[in-house]
């Protein structure tokens, strides 16, 4: 495979982080609905944002890797299909947040969407798998698992661990940033209130 094979490590690790991010968001969603602490909402939102980034990386690195090997940009591989649909779910999540002004409602809705979105992922995966086995694809070759040497396994493991740590660090910083953004929003709203001497209607 040559040098292109090296992309594989990035590809798998990014895909792994993409999935992990969704899991984190769904769990934070459940925790938020339970405890109503906004910290969980900030965590979930950051996870989704970062997850979207890594899913995009995974998809594009996958395409770069696939082209020289199978001579096609896209295959209806179940994992690829599921990843792409997950990406759309992420985008939907972010759009949903933009469409809700109220802080508390936004957190609630985000949590609900993350939960139902995450619940649908295994179902999406199984259906795409079934589509492949029953109707052999005419689009591209099968993504067979390749044999990996021990050295490759080690590299893969190191890569996945590194990406996970990277994810955790990014998550940490992004959620703190999200909290600050939220504080600025609140302060701005209060400043406007004091300026015009009018209070919000109850």
């Amino acid at each position, binding site marked *: 495979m040559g040098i292109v094979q090296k992309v594989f490590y990035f590809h798998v690790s990014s895909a792994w982080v993409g999935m992990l991010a969704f899991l984190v968001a769904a769990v934070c969603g459940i925790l938020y609905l339970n405890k109503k602490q906004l910290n969980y909402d900030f965590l979930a939102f950051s996870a989704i944002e970062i997850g979207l980034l890594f899913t995009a990386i995974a998809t594009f690195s996958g395409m770069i890797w696939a082209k020289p090997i199978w001579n096609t940009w896209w295959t209806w591989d179940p994992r690829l299909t599921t990843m792409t649909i997950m990406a759309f779910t992420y985008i939907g999540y972010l759009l949903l947040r933009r469409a809700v002004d109220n*802080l*508390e409602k936004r957190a609630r809705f985000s949590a609900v969407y993350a939960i139902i979105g995450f619940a649908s992922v295994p179902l999406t995966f199984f259906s795409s798998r079934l589509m492949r086995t029953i109707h052999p694809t005419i689009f591209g070759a099968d993504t067979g698992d390749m044999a990996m040497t021990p050295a490759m396994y080690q590299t893969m493991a190191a890569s996945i661990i590194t990406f996970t740590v990277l994810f955790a660090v990014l998550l940490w910083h992004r959620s703190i940033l999200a909290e600050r953004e939220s504080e600025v929003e*609140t302060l701005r709203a*209060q400043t406007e*209130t004091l300026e015009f001497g009018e*209070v*919000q*209607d*109850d």
Partner: protein
Amino acid sequence: MSLEIRRVSKSFGQHRVLDGLDLEVQPGEPLCLLGRNGAGKTTLLRILAGLLRPEAGSIWLDDQQIDYAESHARHDIGLVMHQPFLYEHLTGVENLRFYARLYQVPDENVAIERAMAQVGMQRFGGKPVRAYSRGMKQRLTIARALLHSPSILILDEPYTGLDLQGSQAFNQLMLEQKQQGRIILMTTHDISHALPISSRFAFLARGRIAEELSNRNLSLEYLESWLTEKLAKSNSGQQRVTA
């Protein structure tokens, strides 16, 4: 069988709307809640209705804490708010029938007829709500609240949309409910109409009841000046902003 609100607090974000509020309402002694816009009246009413959960404090009826998760507790409350709660394409009677069924009112036809008569809407029951005027919708909303004979009536600006005749009919209705020993709590800006039926007035400011006034042959002038003074005092103070 009194309604007690004990040390209820509620914040929206950083804004503390209700701050350890205490209030009591006796059966047959309607209480009129007054206050500036944004003072928290609607918030308190929503908490009483069980639509909002307070951060602290509790609501007690007859020395037992109200558990809003229990549907029989919620069924004991009649609610009139800004929104009409009505389905436009259904007739007045069908709207009432819908709620009567949800509340499992026995003898629903009798109850519906009675409710329509109480608000003077007997003739219009067969028309779709879409065709009602604002005042008619308000009357039907009130009928809806009384349909299941709740012991607690929570009314947020009930006079909105009612003409003079409608307001007088409403007052008559409230006097009947008062005689039956209902617990009535309402907010309004229309104190001239509220005066004949309220036993007490309470002014809400800075998250608490600042002052109460008993209606012992109160004159409208006195009430108005009292209210004006309270409003002025609460306007001069800054809205409390605490974490």
